[in-house]
């Protein structure tokens, strides 16, 4: 991978993705394969929004490759509360750590941060923008379950504000995927994302009813309707509770359908799906650790695996 930073999935080529996934598979089998290359290296965890999986899996991944983490803590307990700019925050933290994992409520925050520091910045979610490391573990999970070529993928839920959706759709353009987007009209893909997909020649269709496409799918990627992203509570209430699936819904799907979700879920996947062979979302969350180990090994590495991580931070979104 030839990038200084990981800001969006759009900067990832198929070769980049497969390199990380292959490395992740190796590390899942043998976590000690990284050796002591990352001893004494520190990763800063800067989460301006709440997070469980992303933060803990980066923390775990860094420690599993022999390094350690420093945590900015909550916004309420940091200098951000005093009005410090993001640019100043990351410039200070650059002096403490060898890389920065940044989650922020504003779109473009990771890109901005990358312009002020020399250490690698990993976008761990920027508002409704992008979440590229989630996409890598999503692809890892898909590859394990269904392969990555000649796939029919349904992506359902909050397509407007869903950053995991934006990143995943972008990355899938590297593969021979047919994409079906299922959402209420008010939560359709934003114009910029649709622009990129068309620009990449993606095969995509948009639906309001899952039944129009369910039987064709290899993968159904469900997302939560994110109450916290809605500027208007009324707008949220109009769509809340729609697009739920349960075991009965999946009787109309293929037996080998894989159901994924970036989690947390609320009510969009009923608990009775958990016991079916379709459910892949907990394995998907667990895959965050080896995938992020591979990613950190690549971006922070100065040994063999990281030798290519030195040149271009270009973000081709």
């Amino acid at each position, binding site marked *: 991978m030839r990038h200084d930073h990981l800001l969006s999935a759009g900067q990832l080529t198929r070769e980049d993705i497969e390199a990380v996934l292959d490395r992740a598979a190796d590390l899942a089998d043998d976590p000690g394969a990284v050796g002591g290359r990352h001893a004494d290296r520190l990763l800063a965890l800067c989460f301006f929004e709440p997070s469980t999986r992303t933060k803990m899996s980066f923390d775990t991944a860094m420690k599993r490759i022999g390094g350690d983490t420093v945590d900015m803590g909550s916004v309420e307990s940091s200098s951000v509360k005093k009005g410090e700019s993001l640019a100043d925050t990351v410039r200070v933290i650059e002096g403490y750590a060898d890389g920065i994992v940044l989650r922020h409520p*504003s779109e473009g925050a990771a890109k901005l941060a990358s312009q002020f520091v020399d250490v690698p910045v990993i976008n761990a979610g920027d508002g409704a923008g992008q979440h590229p490391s989630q996409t890598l573990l999503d692809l890892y999970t898909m590859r394990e379950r269904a392969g990555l070529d000649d796939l029919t993928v349904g992506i359902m839920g909050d397509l407007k504000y869903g950053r995991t959706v934006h990143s995943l759709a972008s990355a899938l353009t590297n593969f021979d995927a047919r994409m079906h987007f299922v959402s209420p009209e008010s939560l359709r893909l934003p114009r910029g994302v649709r622009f990129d997909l068309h620009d990449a020649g993606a095969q995509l269709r948009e639906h309001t009813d899952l039944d129009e496409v369910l039987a064709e799918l290899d993968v159904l990627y469900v997302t939560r309707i994110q109450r916290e992203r809605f500027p208007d509570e009324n707008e949220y209430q109009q769509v809340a509770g729609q697009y739920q699936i349960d075991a009965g819904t999946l009787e109309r799907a293929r037996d080998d359908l894989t159901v994924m979700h970036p989690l947390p879920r609320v009510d969009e996947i009923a608990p009775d799906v958990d016991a079916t062979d379709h459910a892949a979302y907990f394995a998907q969350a667990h895959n965050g650790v080896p995938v992020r180990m591979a990613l950190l090994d690549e971006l922070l590495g100065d040994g063999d695996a990281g030798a290519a991580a030195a040149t271009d931070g270009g973000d081709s979104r």
Partner: protein
Amino acid sequence: MSDAPDRELRISKIRDGTVIDHITGGQALNVLAILGIGGDEGIGVSIGMNVPSDKLGTKDVVKVEGRELSQGEVDVLSLLAPEATVNIVREFEVVEKKRVERPERVVGLLTCPNHNCITNADEPVESAFGVVDDGVRCEFCGEIVREDIGDHLAVH
């Protein structure tokens, strides 16, 4: 004979400076904003707005005395006035005609309409937009602006 000469007389000729013609109707003030001309610089500025045009239906015309536009300034005009023509005038004669070409990107000129874009937070960074086929795109959040680009000028 058309009544064009009368209209020409409404905006007097200039000795030295720049005449920007064929501006999209109603965009003259935004063009001045792009050029950073607010009216208190002491230079003469003549504006014709929504005058009839065979080519555009209606058009705006701006004449700026004592100032010759750079190619960079001319290029950003293309975002608001893709049909504009720019004439450099010296001693009442047109000595140079500049082509309006779309730039690859514009920096610090527009504000992003996405209120949640980091460039709208209080951060020490200039906005940056790439120019796409039929609009501009924020390099930070990916927001695309196609219509009413003039509404998003940062230099108003």
